[in-house]
């Protein structure tokens, strides 16, 4: 990978850049399974140390009495081409880690919200978050055991989703199915971009 080049003034530059997609949804819905099924590396886990009291505290001086905790983020990687890497980040399932979502959402191209129809309400906070932050997303309904008792339209009605949000059924244990979810997201992002242009 010819990654280091030189700019016009002779300064070395890194020729590879990175983008990210987010995989959100409730606890245990299959976010890390989706990441693992398409990632070229086994999903990695990185941790952020935070104050239990407030996520907005960056400087620990003076807050020594507060307990700290860690938020784990699972992520995978797809090398798109020699100059572009796409990272897939699973968002933390517990919503007390909202501040972590802010950093994750910063610069994200878009998101997949993974839903389990047995616990549909578990993904409502994700929908609210991405709508508020104007991060474009698609809804992917994970079919556990290959069974899906509801149709896409029934799920969309239950979620009260805007009509332009693509919704797909999937089985995230299957690489092809997870790929299709990501393709749906990228096609959605491209059509939004085209709309913005016209």
């Amino acid at each position: 990978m010819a990654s280091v080049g030189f700019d016009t003034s002779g300064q070395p530059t890194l020729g590879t850049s990175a983008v990210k997609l987010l995989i959100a949804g409730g606890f245990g819905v299959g976010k890390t399974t989706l990441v693992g099924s398409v990632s070229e590396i086994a999903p990695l886990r990185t941790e952020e140390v935070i104050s239990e009291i407030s996520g907005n505290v960056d400087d620990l001086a003076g807050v020594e009495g507060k307990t700290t905790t860690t938020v784990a983020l699972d992520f995978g990687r797809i090398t798109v081409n020699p100059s572009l890497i796409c990272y897939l980040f699973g968002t933390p399932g517990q919503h007390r880690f909202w501040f972590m979502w802010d950093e994750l959402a910063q610069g994200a191209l878009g998101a997949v919200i993974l839903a389990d129809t047995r616990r549909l309400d578990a993904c409502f906070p994700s929908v609210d978050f991405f709508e508020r932050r104007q991060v474009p997303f698609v809804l992917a309904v994970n079919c556990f055991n290959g069974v899906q008792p509801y149709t896409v339209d029934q799920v969309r009605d239950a979620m009260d989703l805007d009509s332009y949000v693509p919704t797909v059924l999937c089985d995230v244990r299957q690489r092809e199915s997870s790929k299709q979810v990501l393709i749906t997201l990228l096609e959605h992002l491209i059509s939004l971009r085209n709309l913005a242009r016209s």
Partner: protein
Amino acid sequence: MSDRRESWYDDKAGPMVRPYAVTRGRTRSSRPDLDMITLVIAIHPDNGTLDREYAEILRLCQRPLSVAEIGAQLDMALAVVKILICDLIEQGFLLFRAPPTTVDNPDMDILQAVLDGIRRL
């Protein structure tokens, strides 16, 4: 805690090694532009004077790696690894590239490239 014989130490006590020990107490990077997907690559070899954590980062960065990957591989919290990476950038050991900043307006070429890359998987 109902059983008095249980260990006094549990997850709520936090990590046993203070995470900011290796940063000499600093809790935030002097570079606010270091994101978890900022890529870095080694451009200067370890001259043998670097502390172990710095040397390990340089060893990993023979190809472009994100801040998050370095943190995961070295089992370091993001905030900590950002500070160490920042030190290495300032000392000229690492080159970095921040993610594209076209948040509200992603580049069509990037979107198309990602789509093509996923289709090829």
